[in-house]
């Protein structure tokens, strides 16, 4: 944790114990909760997971050249090596909750203790890959700001332990986080005496038929038959039916063309629910199920996407961005930021209402930039737009794949006006509303006077929203 901001919370500041630099390998100090181990099956599971990686790294080519026996032997030796490594790391890994921190100790030679202040917790995810489902285990992932990737994955815990720990962490995080918002009394009443799951009501369930259809309506899926036909044709013409050749071609194709399938697998059975503590609970996945818990005030911005092929169905995809969650450039399937894989506008409107309280999609109006923008974007200029709505700043872009980015005023970190040399000739400027996660809302190529007004309006609204947050039951 390199979080430089001091705990800005006079109520909670005192009881939080200082991050003691005591030797990480030492047993828990007096009065501290005993350190707990991960589930004993974890090394086995992680070993099995690495087996896949090993096989993939050896590649089909190696299998072809060394033969099945040697290949199996090599894989076996590597797998046993990995297993030993994981077993040693399991022996040396422990976690416990100290005050308002979760501490994770790990490492044999290079010992590391990571202390995670729970008021910094952005979201908690409970991930169960296929093997873990069979073994009744789960991985707990905590997202905090500042890490390039998910910090502190606890792999693996038994499902009961993982759920209990999640609820406990969330309760602690809630109490700390809620105090400055003036809702401390209400939250403290919940207490940490009941780590049971808070009651949640379901908001929306995505029908699997819609999901499959939506993924068939993607360019990749449309091209899949052509790809298959091409491969089959090639083999028929060249008359080389070697197993290795087919296997490698299929593997390569799977990597490129099977993104829709991966999406279907990862978004299967998508359920969005909301609990009484103002948190989203999302669960999805077929082979790897994920249960994500996101406090609503951690959502930095929401993005609506409407691909060209979905337009006849009037379908949308909703994404939310959380500070610290996996980087925007990451693998799509790995990004835990989906809010709705596919849905109609009424659903999107309803979910947005929950994600950003008071934001109504029907009330979002954007105005296009002035017509002279067409010198910069001959085709796309009509699809650009920006506008102020009740709680969010909306910006629109994209000719084929339409995107609408909604930045809540309360989450704006800074406002920028940027004017390039061409824009200067045309008296245009771009206004950015930056947030801590995801893309900035960018009102591109506005008229210069309008851009200044927009920037002034944005900073004024952002300040209002921030100050509203400090009062009880604010806009958060």
């Amino acid at each position, binding site marked *: 944790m390199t979080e*430089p*901001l*001091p705990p*800005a919370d006079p109520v909670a500041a005192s009881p939080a114990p200082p991050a003691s630099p005591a030797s990480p390998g030492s047993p828990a100090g007096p009065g501290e909760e005993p350190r707990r181990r991960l589930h004993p099956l974890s090394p086995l599971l992680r070993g099995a997971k690495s087996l896949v990686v090993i096989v993939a790294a050896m590649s089909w080519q190696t299998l072809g050249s060394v033969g099945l026996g040697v290949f199996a032997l090599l894989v076996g030796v590597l797998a046993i090596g990995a297993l030993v490594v994981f077993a040693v790391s399991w022996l040396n890994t422990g976690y416990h909750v100290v005050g308002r921190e979760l501490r994770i100790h790990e490492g044999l030679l290079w010992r590391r203790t990571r202390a995670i202040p729970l008021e910094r917790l952005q979201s908690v995810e409970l991930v169960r890959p296929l093997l873990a489902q069979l073994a009744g285990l789960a991985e707990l992932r905590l997202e905090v*700001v500042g890490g390039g990737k998910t910090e502190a994955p606890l792999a693996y815990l038994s499902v009961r332990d993982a759920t209990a720990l999640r609820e406990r962490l969330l309760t602690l995080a809630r109490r700390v986080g809620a105090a400055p918002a003036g809702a401390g009394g*209400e939250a403290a009443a919940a207490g940490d005496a009941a780590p049971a799951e808070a009651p949640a009501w379901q908001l929306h369930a995505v029908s699997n038929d819609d999901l499959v259809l939506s993924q068939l309506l993607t360019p990749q899926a449309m091209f899949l038959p052509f790809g298959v036909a091409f491969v089959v044709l090639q083999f028929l013409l060249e008359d080389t039916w070697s197993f290795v050749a087919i296997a490698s071609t299929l593997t390569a194709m799977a990597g490129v063309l099977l993104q829709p399938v991966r999406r279907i697998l990862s978004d299967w059975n998508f359920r969005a629910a909301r609990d*009484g503590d103002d948190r989203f609970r999302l669960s999805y996945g077929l082979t790897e199920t994920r249960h994500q818990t996101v406090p609503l005030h*951690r959502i930095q911005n929401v993005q*609506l996407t*409407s691909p060209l092929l979905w337009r006849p169905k009037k379908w*949308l995809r909703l994404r939310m961005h959380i*500070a610290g969650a996996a980087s925007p450039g990451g693998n799509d399937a790995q990004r835990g930021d989906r809010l709705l894989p596919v849905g*109609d*506008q*009424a659903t*999107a*409107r*309803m979910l947005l*209402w929950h994600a950003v*309280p008071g934001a109504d*999609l*029907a009330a*979002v*109006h*954007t*105005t296009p930039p002035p017509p002279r923008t067409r010198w910069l974007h001959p085709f796309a200029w009509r699809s650009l*737009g920006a506008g102020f709505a009740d709680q969010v700043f909306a910006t*629109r872009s994209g000719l084929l794949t*339409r995107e*609408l980015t909604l930045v809540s005023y309360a*989450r704006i*970190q*800074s*406002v*920028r*006006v*940027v*004017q*390039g040399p061409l824009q*200067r000739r045309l008296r245009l*400027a771009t206004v*950015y509303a*930056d947030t*801590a996660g995801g893309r*900035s809302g960018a009102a591109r190529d506005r008229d*210069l*006077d*309008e851009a*200044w*007004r927009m*920037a*002034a309006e*944005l*900073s004024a609204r*952002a*300040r209002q929203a*921030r100050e509203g*947050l*400090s009062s009880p*039951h604010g806009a958060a």
Partner: protein
Amino acid sequence: MTAEPQPPTGPAAFAGSPAPAEAGAAPLDALEPWPDTVAWQPVSPDLVKVELIGVGTWMLMLGGAAGVAWALLGHWLLGAALALIVLWSAWRAVVAVRAVRAWGYAERDHDLLVRNGLLVRRLSIVPYARMQFVDVTAGPLERAFDLATVQLHTAAAASDARVPGLRPAEAARLRDRLTALGEDRAEGL
């Protein structure tokens, strides 16, 4: 949790219908938004010297190499390269002088404004409340001219509030003011 506002139902217009544009205000200079309310502080003119020395160093290194090669080989292309390097350096020097004049900052009640750039003009508005940390840096050249750079960081990677060319006393004052105001209104995320 009192009366939860009911989520709206029914389809929403994704495309967004155009709303009437506001009436245009008086035209403003691109670098002077809100001239009535904002008192822009210039950065120290000594920054020009730092920039010029930087440009000059580059010119000496590149131009020197080209000049030596020209003297030894006598090819006319090398002479042209030398002329180009000198011209380019002169252009950079002019730009540097004007860019330093374009750089400015203003402390408003709730936010820090920083503007910079000639070719690509930028204005950043960073609320004090969003401050995560403040950097004060001074390179050897800057130190020789008694200058320092203050940079305000927020949780958003895109935020960009860097003020170069401040006197150390002014840099320290700005840093202390920023941190004090930041703590006052802390609302990091």
